[in-house]
């Protein structure tokens, strides 16, 4: 909440900057977070499927977090 006078929704054209700023100090990969966030909304939009989203980031998530517990895992997905 940067301005106590007027908390706000994030306008889409500022979203990426804000997302990066939000993840800037995090000890995890900022770029991965921004990309996943963007694609998660593409999933909501129907542009990507859950399975595609899951597969796309599975390895990166495993590498970054040592686990991948996302609920997007498709049936029979091989996660080793």
């Amino acid at each position, binding site marked *: 909440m940067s301005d106590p006078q007027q908390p706000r929704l994030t306008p889409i*054209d500022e979203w990426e900057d804000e997302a990066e700023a939000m993840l800037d100090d995090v000890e995890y990969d900022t770029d991965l977070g921004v990309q996943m966030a963007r694609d998660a909304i593409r999933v909501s*939009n129907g542009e990507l499927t859950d399975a595609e989203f899951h597969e796309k980031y599975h390895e990166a998530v495993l590498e970054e977090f040592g686990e991948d517990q996302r609920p997007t895992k498709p049936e029979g997905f091989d996660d080793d």
Partner: protein
Amino acid sequence: MTDDGTYRRDVLKAGGAAAALGVGGSGFLQSLVESEDDQDLNASVQSFVGENEVIQTVCSPNCRGKCPIDVHVRDGQVKKIEPHPPEDEQYKRACVLGLSHTQRVYDPTRLKFPMKRADWSPDDPNPEGRGPDAEFKRVSWDEALDLVADKMQSLKADHGAESVLFHEGSGNYGQTGKSFKRLASLFGATQSAWGIDTNVGRGFNRVTGVGAFLPPTNEAEDWENANTIIVWGSDIFSSQFQMDASKILDAIENGAKLVVVDPVYTTTASKADLWLPVEPGKDVHLALAMMHTVFEDETYDEDFLQKRTTAPALIRKDTGELLKASDVFEDGGEQQVVAVEQGTNSPVALEPETGGAYALFGEFTVAGVECQTALTKLRDHVADYAPEEVAEKTGVDAENIRTAIRWLATRGPGGIAPSYALGRYKHGHIFGQAYAMLMGMTGDYGRHGNIHAHHSGGATLAAGNWASPEDADPGPSLTFPNYPDAMIDGDPHQIRAVYSIESNMMGNQFPDRQRFRDAIRSLEMYVVADMHHTDTVQHADIIFPVPHWFEQEDISSGWGSHPHLGYRHKVQEPLWETKDDYYAIQELADRLGFGDRFPETKRDMLRKLAGRDDDIDFDTLFEQGTQKKESVPIVKYTDEFPTETGRIKMYDDDAPSEEGVTFDVPRPLEDRTADDYEKADEYPLMFMQKHSRFRIHSQYEMLNWVREINPEPQLDIHPKDAKARGIGDGEYVRVYNDRGEMVVKAKYNDAFQPGLVNTDQGWWSRDFVEGHLQDLTHNEVSEVGQTMAFYDVRVAVEPAPDDVDTDKYESGNPLGAGAEAAPTGGD
């Protein structure tokens, strides 16, 4: 209207989502939580629901809520507040402030111990030591009470009891004030008389015989029956009525028209069907133009005018007095007025509440005297106020004036809900007179759906003469505006000591602050009882620490709000050494020789007072927590008006006058809003101090949660006015006039009329970068209104000097002055 337009939802919806993210064609996915079948539904939220002790009590400032609330206590601490629906559940209520008592009960501003100013003694009061640099030392209650009682006795012996003023504010809505006044009466002290917000009621009273502050109005539950609601000068959804907002919203939902007359585009205006952006001080012109329209359209309520007003009464052309029945008939009454029957032109003495085919207009010769009817006189008077004629002066479009009053006059029952703000202009009583008569013309009295004020009547405990027992010899009363003269110059008599309860007079609600400070510095003793270390407390010689409302039992009247009395049960024992005002009053009474006149315990006192009110049974009230007063009428003005004629006065032949203007009919008279006011060029901006939703007077100033939303005092200013002065949005500005100055942050706000600026009231001096908003206001009252005119004030605004220290708001401290008390966490 934003730079990038991005805060508006419609813009958001139309925003660049498609561009940034693409819009896919395939279906969306459902959440897949089912695949996680080991997910505990309530895995991570530890709930305490049902574990709290819940105590019903009442929130008690002088707002219009008087909200029955449930206080949840756990582990010895107040954990949350919720509204408690009273017996009549439609009056369930609470607001952002009453819900936040967790932020107040434990605030560091609370007083903890009785204290004495370090350099004060009864014989050597060091008056200059009062103020920001004063230091205090802790004393025992006995020592504090002895000092006060001894000084009161010696002043009484040397100068008379009236040299001591008992000043009562409105900060604690219970019954203790009645015992405070009782002690004052027995001792013979000067007593305070109200001089704030009494203007509009006075004017209304001249017409109807009713009204002191704002006049009575139908209870809130009836407002949904209104077909037209004209809210005049009130941000009713932010202040005074917000806890009853649903009542007006329901009326709107049922099809009522909401008109808002206000120089500010308020929250309420944003909900209106029609907003009339009147210029400050031009309300009477507007009301007269509305009367003009009613005459022009002939939409006045003939039956009502004939039956319940003096509209048909005859005015003698020779003297300007009303023709009396005794002038016409041998056995005619000296107070009785006379009309003529239509057609026969024969005179009739008018009885209250009696209709007839009386001529409303015309000139007649009766008993050899040339006369005209009162309504003729009024019609002729307002002939000069056609909407087109006042449009430029009032700033309101002529057709919109017509539309507003046509709705009221032709859509069935409705009303006008004026605020106290109108009375904060010097001659505000004239508006009271004008709208009382206007509603007489539309016949809006005594019906379901009528509204006469922006808060309803509510219930008051009828405590008889407890405050002024028969055998007492009470001292004189002194109205607030007369305090400085009395304290400084001994006019009308010298005040040498003040005992003040429930009031932050130095911090709020008293204008021309520097002169009030001088007045207080003229005293020999200043005793202040309060819950918090306010600006006023900082000027005290003796401090009585008062517990939070949750630590005092009391009976709260629902005055100005809803038809219940509430029992304010104690939630917890008083923290530290705080003690109920009743304790100090009783102990002082003991020392002054009146101890036997006060019941031993506060509950005994409350029981006794409740026993004087036939509607109330103490035990029922105590057990239920609320009791509805069945005698409170939902619809007001159903009986004869308490005027000489029993009728609404459409002409006043015994009217007061001031500055050469007589108010036989409403005649506009302005002070600083006048176009030709002499210092209008020097101080070009009108300055108001709006009530906001974030404070009640100066109460709740310390709520840190609220301060996260509303962190510091600001100057609402139209961007045009700001830019003309080289002031950027968010920059600090110096606001000044010939009485004083303040430094606050400018807030560009298109809701404000160019030429009008505002700082919300209720901030303490610690919140200002420099000065205080009451350093700018003045203490000049009108002869007739006798009411402080806080908004009738002019200022100039310029960028703040470069060297001004705004550190408290700019050093990464989002909470401003409250930050010491409340470090912030998170980001």
